[in-house]
């Protein structure tokens, strides 16, 4: 009888284990293979693949789309990337908003929505992220992959004992070899993440990019927040942008990229290419460690009483109240910062102007909601629908 009982327990336990594996495995698989449709603006000139600049990436998870918009008049070239850290939705949503609505008059604009696709195919164990988030649009609900800060271990395994950054040899945490904003300027023979940085450096070289912008969001406990981090060659533009925005639309700071901190885009892209590099940070309470219930609501509204309480104790670097930090506000900030940066760029470089249309500013995004700017893929001509 005892033996029999044990055998029964074992059989039941194994069955439950297998069922859990199948259900969870299916959830992981569908998240990892979900494709986000993007309706490129009718003014898009060309949509390339990242592997067009570095063939090694062909067929890999990180061979993302590169949207190129050329104006009728010549000018400067800007590259904007979202999705460096796919746990920061404000970044890829802003990049997609731009791709779906942009019209370039002068110069050239290049956009990547999911710069490190691999990191958008996984969520962080132990942190209970939702797998997807949903944005209301006039034509229905649009679904996006929530991601992690680090590339998927399935694409880059194992991590080294310590991560030695190339080429500075600075020692960083082992998992940061999968952090797309610690691996610039990349390495030709490196891991998938390092190769992706390398591919973007090739792109910057071949397309003669003048200005490089990397979109991010940060927890309120983190000192670098609501700011533009600038390479020393970009401080005039960043400072003017911050001044103008702070007096007209919202408060945003400006800080210098530290010289001794390696692997970050605002340092390495500026150091290793002709382009000036900037990085925008918007507040995302979802990333705070003291956050309460972790769900899609928090991700999109940025409302959290625990984070507010931490603010009352002076533990935060950005204000937060009952209104939280809704996704529309965060995307609006990025959109306006981008627009003002380009205006400043054109003022400082009249020979290389970049003039664009069709992108809403801060107040418009808040008034209409970011979903208002996304087009219905089922109603769009097939040749303008792309998948991220």
């Amino acid at each position: 009888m005892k033996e029999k009982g044990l055998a029964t327990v074992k059989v039941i336990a194994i069955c439950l284990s297998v069922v859990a594996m199948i259900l969870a495995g299916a959830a992981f698989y569908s998240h990892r293979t979900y494709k986000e449709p993007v309706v490129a603006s009718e003014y898009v000139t060309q949509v390339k693949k990242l592997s067009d600049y570095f063939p090694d990436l062909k067929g890999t998870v990180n061979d993302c789309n590169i949207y190129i918009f050329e104006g009728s008049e010549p000018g400067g070239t800007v590259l904007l990337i979202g999705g460096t850290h796919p746990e920061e939705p404000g970044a890829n949503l802003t990049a997609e908003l731009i791709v779906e609505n942009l019209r370039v008059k002068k110069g050239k604009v290049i956009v990547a929505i999911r710069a490190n696709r691999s990191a958008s195919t996984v969520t962080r164990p132990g942190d209970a992220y939702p797998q997807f988030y949903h944005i209301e649009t006039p034509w229905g609900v649009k679904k996006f992959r929530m991601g992690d800060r680090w590339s998927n271990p399935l694409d880059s395994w194992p991590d080294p004992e310590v991560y030695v950054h190339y080429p500075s040899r600075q020692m960083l945490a082992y998992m940061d070899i999968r952090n797309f904003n610690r691996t610039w300027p990349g390495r030709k023979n490196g891991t998938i993440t390092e190769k992706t940085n390398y591919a973007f450096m090739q792109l910057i070289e071949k397309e003669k990019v003048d200005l490089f912008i990397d979109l991010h969001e940060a927890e309120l406990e983190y000192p670098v927040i609501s700011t533009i981090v600038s390479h020393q060659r970009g401080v005039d533009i960043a400072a003017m942008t911050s001044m103008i925005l702070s007096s007209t639309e919202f408060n945003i700071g400006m800080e210098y990229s530290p010289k001794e901190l390696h692997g970050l885009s605002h340092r390495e892209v500026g150091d290793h290419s002709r382009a000036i590099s900037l990085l925008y940070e918007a507040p995302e309470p979802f990333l705070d460690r003291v956050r309460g219930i972790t769900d899609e609501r928090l991700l999109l509204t940025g409302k959290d009483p625990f984070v507010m309480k931490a603010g009352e104790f002076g533990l935060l670097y950005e204000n937060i109240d009952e209104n939280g930090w809704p996704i529309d506000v965060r995307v609006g900030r990025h959109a306006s910062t981008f627009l003002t940066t380009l205006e400043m760029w054109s003022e400082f470089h009249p020979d290389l102007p970049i003039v664009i249309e069709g992108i809403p500013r801060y107040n418009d995004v808040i008034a209409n909601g970011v979903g208002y700017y996304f087009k219905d893929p089922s109603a769009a001509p097939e040749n303008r629908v792309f998948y991220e």
Partner: protein
Amino acid sequence: MFLNAVVTFLYYVLSAFIAFIILRNIIKTKSAQEAVLYCIMIIPFVLRVLRLK
């Protein structure tokens, strides 16, 4: 680098080996509680080998 691919493969082999031993332990153990715990423990190793997570 080719060697990196070899190393990655070895890690899957290692995970599979651990999963295999946990499975043997499930079958061999005389304790119901241990059997249940092993059934929980085996999940991540199997899903990693199957490249699902």
